[in-house]
């Protein structure tokens, strides 16, 4: 939800403090402490918010910390509120039998983020899908083309300002 990032920076730090002992939080704080901007535990799921420019480094850190399996990645369009896009990465640890969500918030005018295909090649199709359906660009992606829609399609269908029945 957008209100979680509209908190004051002090509030964010407090939220992070609560989960200091969690291995994922520990690993991120051990690397670049600035990268982690928020943490939330809701309905049995841990959500970590990461600065957009740090996502690749954060994923590499988490991979080294035991979250070895990239399960899912998608976007949510919070139009018309700002920042507009939320990217949600779901990472799974086979050893700890636990899943975490890593979130990144992107502004509409700067909707580009570093690709994590160098960390998990599995993200290839997922990033192409998000590019196709949301128009978010992934820097360093080896083959950033449309995947589900035709190559000559105009617009990004999963954006909230795209009508359900399409443009007529």
């Amino acid at each position, binding site marked *: *939800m957008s209100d979680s990032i509209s908190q004051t920076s002090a509030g964010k730090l407090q939220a992070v403090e609560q989960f200091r002992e969690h291995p994922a939080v520990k690993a991120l704080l051990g690397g670049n402490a600035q990268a982690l901007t928020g943490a939330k535990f*809701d*309905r*049995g*799921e841990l*959500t970590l918010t990461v600065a957009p420019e740090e996502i690749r480094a954060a994923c590499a850190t988490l991979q080294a910390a035991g979250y*070895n*399996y*990239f*399960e*899912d990645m*998608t976007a*949510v*369009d919070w139009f018309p509120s700002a920042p507009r896009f939320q990217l*949600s990465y*779901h990472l*799974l640890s*086979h050893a700890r*039998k*636990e*899943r975490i*969500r890593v979130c990144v918030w992107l502004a509409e005018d700067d909707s580009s983020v570093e690709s994590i295909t160098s960390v*998990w*090649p*599995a*993200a*290839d*199709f*997922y990033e192409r899908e998000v590019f196709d*359906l949301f128009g978010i660009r992934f820097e360093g992606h080896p083959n950033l083309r*449309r*995947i*589900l*829609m*035709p190559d000559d399609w105009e617009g990004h*269908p*999963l954006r909230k300002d*795209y009508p*359900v029945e399409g443009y007529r």
Partner: protein
Amino acid sequence: MSDRALAPVLDLPGSESTAARHMILNMGPQHPATHGVLRLVVELDGEVIVSVKPQIGYLHTGIEKTCEAKFYQQVVPLTDRINYLDTFSNNLCYCLAVEKLLGLEIPERAQWIRVLLTELSRLNSHLIWLGTHAMDIGALTVFLYTFREREEILRLFEAVAGQRMMASYFRIGGLSMEPPLDFFDRVQAFIRTFPEKIDEYSNLLTGNPIFINRLKGVGYLSAADAIALGVSGPPLRASGVDFDLRRDMPYSSYEKFQFQVPVSTDGDCWARYLVRLIEMRESVKIIQQALDGMPDGPVKADAPKVVLPDREKMKTQMEALIHHFKIVTEGFNVPAGEVYQGIECGHGQMGYYVVSDGSAKPYRVHMRYPSFPTLQAIETMCKGRLIADLVAVIGSIDIVLGEIDR
């Protein structure tokens, strides 16, 4: 004059023109062995595969966008149509996700019936895989045998839900209704004879030298590659990763069932075949346990604002009639938040990511389906191998194009 100088004139194969000798072969989207509308652009050096590029999207119907325009309960029938071979798993995963958002407690009987039907659904999925996979390899007979048993399973689905394939039997808050009286007896009769049927398939294939030669050592995928490429389910376990969501992160009371998770370290098509064959036997065990220990009680949660009331109550109680009218016309509000629910379906790890903004329609529904990332692994499995192996590999990873394109 040297040979090199002559090369451009005579068009001799030089070092830079090796790429020119490669043939680009378009396989699909209507090729019978691609299990749907999958298109593969294969680059070949003679008969050896240089690269395989999957082109997908032919079945894209924008289900994720459609979900945003529907009430929560109206999404259930949409989910059936994504993976049309393992339909109950779709329902289960979506319902579990929304129930997690709502914080609903599901009665034990409903959970157990869900497990029973999901395992039947897994058998259905594996039977189709086995029949079509064997048919691709050239063993036509098995297809007729597996579809005989599949028909039995579809009849059970019809008995319980009135629908053979698109059942939509699991609802948010439980099941749509109590199964018919003779349902459990019919499942018991099916389960009693089914292990012999698995023996029958095994007799036809496991010792068959042609089948063995077409699968053994073909399509190798290491455990590290499988994890890096996001492969899940039977192909992951056939590569030596011992992970099954049913056992390791149980949902819908799977923790109460005893079963083995088959693992092989060979990582080839043969290992995937054996893993799935054993999985079918384990599913039979789970169904047997579900039948033996089936608890009594209601099959719907006690949540009148979410779950549709019984017909009888609607005719006699004003309150129930109002709730029914409200749910059907306005839906029900779901508290704001986001959840991700993962389950183990026939093909691998399925996941639903549901985001709510507090209204009666989901703000965002994203489906993680196992075939989508698994398709990326096809190049790793086929590179440097013969084109004839490609068909065996496509069969062995068991993809459904409906869930790839959504």
